[in-house]
């Protein structure tokens, strides 16, 4: 099933166009379905409820889902290539723990939404860059060390979060827990968040696109990569720093949304093959598609079950079995 044939312009265009069309359809569906029925004749009328719902709530939220999904998918593919490990994804490298801890620290300090957002962003960055620094010896990033240190950082952050919750008052505990659940619902007091996501994702996309061929070479092993003129350690350091920015922004804004960064690159690799020139943009589109659909499901269910499920629950519930199915399929194909 894995597309092993060399990447042709036709396959490149067809894959991306197919994913683009699917994402566009999902975006339309997401605009159509929501927590409230929409009077479409009123969406152009300024001051109407329909306009407020569509333009102030639904569109920023869909935009956030598209951008966060693209960031997670693209970063997952890049990290799996950089570390040459199928389990690599943004959250396994300590970023979730760092973001949660940074955000909780801001809550404990009594800071409002902006402080919590910045705390989450700072925590994610510190964790990712810290893991990279700790896994670097004599200028060389050790991929396995990075994964292990990432796991340790997440565990440490988890323990620090529990300690924090054990020491603060009940209202602060509640606020920390609510924040950790996360949501794609745009913070109405911070309308600039999607722009930050777009800016950091755009920067990472440009750098990753320019590094795609080097990532292909890196997949042959560090020694071969060096003999072909690619400096693996410099490439890893550069790309870790570059993907840290959008990952930190996405986690701070939306909370924990697991499995997208892990599964999407695997699923896309089955269709698009391992060439990073296609895998990276296809994973970005795939991530956007998956997260928009998951969030549409969440929003569509809200009026039915009377509460909004955290989207991370949906991605984990659907992603877990899907990942096992993918694993069995690729193992079976051997």
């Amino acid at each position, binding site marked *: 099933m894995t597309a092993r044939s060399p990447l042709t312009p036709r396959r490149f265009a067809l894959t991306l166009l197919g994913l683009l069309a699917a994402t566009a359809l999902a975006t339309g569906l997401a605009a159509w379905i929501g*927590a409230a029925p929409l009077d479409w004749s009123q969406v152009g009328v300024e001051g109407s409820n329909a306009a407020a719902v569509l333009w102030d709530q639904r569109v920023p939220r869909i935009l956030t889902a598209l951008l966060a999904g693209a960031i997670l998918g693209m970063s997952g593919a890049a990290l799996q290539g950089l570390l040459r490990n199928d389990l690599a994804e943004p959250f396994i490298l300590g970023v979730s723990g760092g973001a949660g801890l940074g955000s909780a620290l801001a809550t404990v300090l009594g800071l409002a939404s902006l402080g919590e957002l910045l705390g989450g962003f700072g925590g994610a960055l510190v964790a990712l860059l810290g893991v990279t620094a700790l896994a670097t010896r004599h200028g060389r990033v050790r991929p396995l060390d990075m994964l292990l240190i990432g796991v340790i950082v997440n565990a440490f952050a988890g323990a620090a979060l529990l300690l924090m919750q054990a020491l603060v008052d009940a209202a602060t505990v509640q606020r920390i827990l609510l924040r950790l659940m*996360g*949501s794609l619902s745009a913070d109405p007091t911070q309308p600039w968040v999607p722009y930050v996501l777009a800016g950091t994702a755009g920067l990472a996309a440009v750098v990753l696109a320019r590094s795609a061929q080097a990532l292909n070479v890196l997949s042959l092993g560090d020694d071969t990569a060096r003999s072909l003129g690619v400096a693996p350690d410099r490439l890893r350091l550069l790309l870790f720093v570059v993907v840290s920015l959008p990952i930190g922004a996405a986690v701070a804004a939306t909370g924990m949304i697991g499995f997208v960064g892990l599964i999407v690159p695997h699923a896309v690799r089955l269709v698009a093959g391992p060439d990073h020139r296609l895998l990276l943009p296809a994973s970005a589109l795939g991530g956007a598609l998956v997260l928009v659909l998951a969030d549409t499901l969440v929003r569509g269910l809200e009026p039915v*079950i*009377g509460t909004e499920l955290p989207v991370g629950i949906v991605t984990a519930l659907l992603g877990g079995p899907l990942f096992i199915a993918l694993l069995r399929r690729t193992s079976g194909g051997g």
Partner: protein
Amino acid sequence: MRFLPTALVSLLALGAASCDSSCSGIKAPPVDRASPRLATLTPSLTALAVHLDAREHLVGVSRHGPQVSGVPVVAGVRPNVEAVLYVEPDIVAIGKFPSNSADIARLRAIGRFRVMELGVVTLGDLRASALALGSALNRSPLALAFAERLDASLAAARASTISATRPRALVVYGRSGGIFYSTGGGDHVADILEALGVRNVTAGGPVSVRVSLERVIHLAPDTILHVMPEPDIKTTADAMTFWEKVAPTLPAVERGRIIAWSDNTLSLNGPEIVGAIASLTQRLEALPR
């Protein structure tokens, strides 16, 4: 190596000994003291005990809730069983929640004190718990007086003119980004709204409801109650500023019908709820129609 069998036998013996005291259905000793020692593991129950003038009975309290000078903390989110045992209570009062059942069973299995599993979710729970605690602490007249004040405040709420307009209220317990946390019913705030004749726009969901701002706009509440202070919403003026910014078309915003609570007297189902009901009644009556 010869040490190993001895150690195993000792461990088995210890296991059997611990099972003697915890697994064989031992009943708690009867509380026959005139002044029983009480450990309260839930904030509402600590507040009730203090309200019933039973401060001198308290030998252990929950960390979340009123602190009593010189009384050690024996519970956080969960009870610290060792700390509870150390203070040698005659009675351990703990809130009845589904998440507490394992802890309650563990405390009961110890068999060295009476475990009172008391409801604290609804106003009915609070009333019954006050009477039960009052009876156990020989404070029945005070407990009865509290129950009567609670009944009277609810009667006053029912007699108010608020229900004439059947307001549609959104209760906000907290906010995270664009998600608001509310009540789907079945808690003390929902009971108060019912007594006031106020319709809860998120009724029918789970007790704790996550509501998106999109759904809030769709539900179009004409009254908004922030029942807990938040870092950016501590006063009614803060709440008004917030809602004017994020959803200016809501009926509650257009009509200026927003109330924020700057303390936890309304969010904590404890003895201060009587005053909170009266205060909420007054504040709702004072809102523009």
